[in-house]
């Protein structure tokens, strides 16, 4: 019950937040909460390190931006189009890359994302090096005007809540169970008659779809889409968010997204130091705190307040 209470409080806080904090910063955090969750689904639950996750994020941003600019579609159409396109991309990338596992999967997805980067660089509609500017926030459902920051914040919040709920459902479904089983012991899952590849491809599809949703939303939040959105530093950022927050924990990567975005915001004036700080933090997390913030905190919590049933499985 306390959990419902906490969730309620959190929701109230989120609804009230733009009164205190600049809405675009909040929206940017929410976009990355979705993006980080999508990445967490792959690495945290399926054990797949996709090193080119920005390709889904950035492509959807361009597609949503293009539809909004050229055809003036409404907000939800742009979001759905971005999501579906990225999901389809995830399916194709999945088919190609799940042929190798572990470290090679990471290298292949990185290479494919670079391929997508060059494609988008050369494509006419993206505006090349200049990117796509002045993307309009059109209407929601063709009727509601959501073009000011406040209104659009609530659109973003709603989308983020729905996305996180979807993520939660997937992770706690039988499908999510199988993904975890594949992560922990693939040969065993295979010997039970499942075909791990198919589950991995499906995980790629879902994850890419969520990443696309985040990207499409981002295009409307910032009202531009650039090559940065498809570039490897963005892929790196989402890796950092996930590891820093806590790999395979439900809330960790969301928290990580918040921390990294705020940190970037603070360090933006110090030139390269933002990137250097990301590297240092990533390194520290890998060497000393592999459970991430949420993972370490909940381990501490368990140690301080050992309840009998947890005592057994924690030894």
């Amino acid at each position, binding site marked *: 019950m306390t959990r419902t209470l906490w969730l309620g409080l959190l929701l109230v806080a989120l609804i009230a937040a733009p009164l205190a904090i600049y809405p675009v910063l909040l929206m940017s955090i929410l976009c990355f909460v979705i993006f980080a969750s999508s990445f967490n689904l792959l690495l945290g639950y399926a054990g797949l*390190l996709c090193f080119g996750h920005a390709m889904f994020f950035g492509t959807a941003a361009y597609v949503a931006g293009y539809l909004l600019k050229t055809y003036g579609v409404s907000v939800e159409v742009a979001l759905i189009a971005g999501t579906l396109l990225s999901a389809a991309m995830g399916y194709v990338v999945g088919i*190609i*890359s799940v*042929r*190798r596992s*572990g*470290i*090679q999967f*990471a*290298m*292949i997805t*990185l*290479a*494919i994302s*670079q*391929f997508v980067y*060059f*494609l988008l*660089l*050369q494509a006419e509609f993206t505006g090349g090096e200049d990117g796509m500017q002045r993307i309009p926030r059109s209407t929601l459902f063709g009727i509601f005007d959501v073009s000011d920051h406040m209104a659009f914040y609530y659109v973003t919040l709603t989308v983020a809540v729905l996305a996180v709920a979807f993520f939660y459902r997937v992770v706690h479904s039988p499908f999510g169970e199988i993904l975890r089983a594949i992560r922990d012991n693939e040969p065993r899952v295979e010997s039970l008659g499942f075909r791990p590849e198919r589950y991995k491809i499906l995980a790629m599809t879902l994850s890419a779809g969520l990443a696309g949703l985040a990207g499409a939303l981002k295009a409307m939040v910032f009202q531009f889409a650039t090559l940065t959105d498809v570039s*490897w530093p963005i892929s*790196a950022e989402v*890796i950092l968010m996930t*590891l820093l927050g806590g790999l395979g924990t439900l809330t960790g990567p969301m928290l990580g997204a918040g921390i990294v975005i705020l940190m970037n915001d603070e360090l933006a004036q110090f*030139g*390269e*130091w933002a*990137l*250097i700080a*990301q*590297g*240092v933090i*990533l*390194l520290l997390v*890998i*060497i000393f705190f*592999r459970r991430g913030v949420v993972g370490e905190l909940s381990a501490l919590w368990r140690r301080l307040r050992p309840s009998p049933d947890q005592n057994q499985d924690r030894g």
Partner: protein
Amino acid sequence: MFDGISTQLLFGQVLIGLINGSFYAMLSLGLAIIFGLMSVVNFAHGAQYMLGAFIAWGLLNYLGVPYWGALFIAPVVVGAFGLVMERLILRPIQNLDHLYSLLATFAAVLIIEGLVRQEFGSTGLPYNSPLPGGVNLGFMFMPWYRLWVVVFSIVVCFGTYILIEHTKLGAYLRAANERPEIVESFGINVPRMISLTYAFGVGLAGLGGVLAAPIYQVSPSMGSNLMIVIFAVVVIGGMGSILGAILTGYLIGIVEGLTKVFYPEAANLVIFVIMIFALILRPNGLFSGKEGYK
């Protein structure tokens, strides 16, 4: 012969392809050596290559050490840097899932590149060719320095290959690649061997950086874009295959050059297209047969 395409252009691009291929080959060779022994995909390889170029630049501009000195000094310095990196960030996580070492070396890239960019800015620094001029071959003009790069890289690559395949030292490496604990049980200091191998691979990247300095601009990002291409090369050639890395490197460079002649728009893409086809047609890599060094 090909309507509209002059032989000048054709050979010119093949030469550029061969030059690029030289770097692909040298870098993926180092990557393959490191991967073979440590199962570490050294993401920092591109950053270490960039360091090699910057050290050459610094040696020249601060200390007046010419190119030929840098050719020896820079790889040693970068190799020593690799030793430190191995101790500090790879040793503590050596028993974990190999994804962690990939991520740790990647974090090192963010730090190294960030620091260099902070210090030198993003724009490229020029480095004059130590071998100006060239020779007119009739069908094309061959700059001396490019000829030197191609020849030297071939010597380095195949020298390393012979070292690994046909010497006692290489036998230790191949054996430790298969069963490190057994090699250690013979009384060989395998942990030190791993450090030195990493340093050697990293030193090769540094050497590549020195070679590259007079050809490309010396810039902080010169390594990271190359790195992704190198990953594709290694995936195509088969992970950990020494010969596969070398041959695929040159091959991909040349194919890329030819693409520039016949279909310039696709020149950036062709490597990745080949990788995708290779994955579909030869899921284990072009040169893979058995595990280990070949």
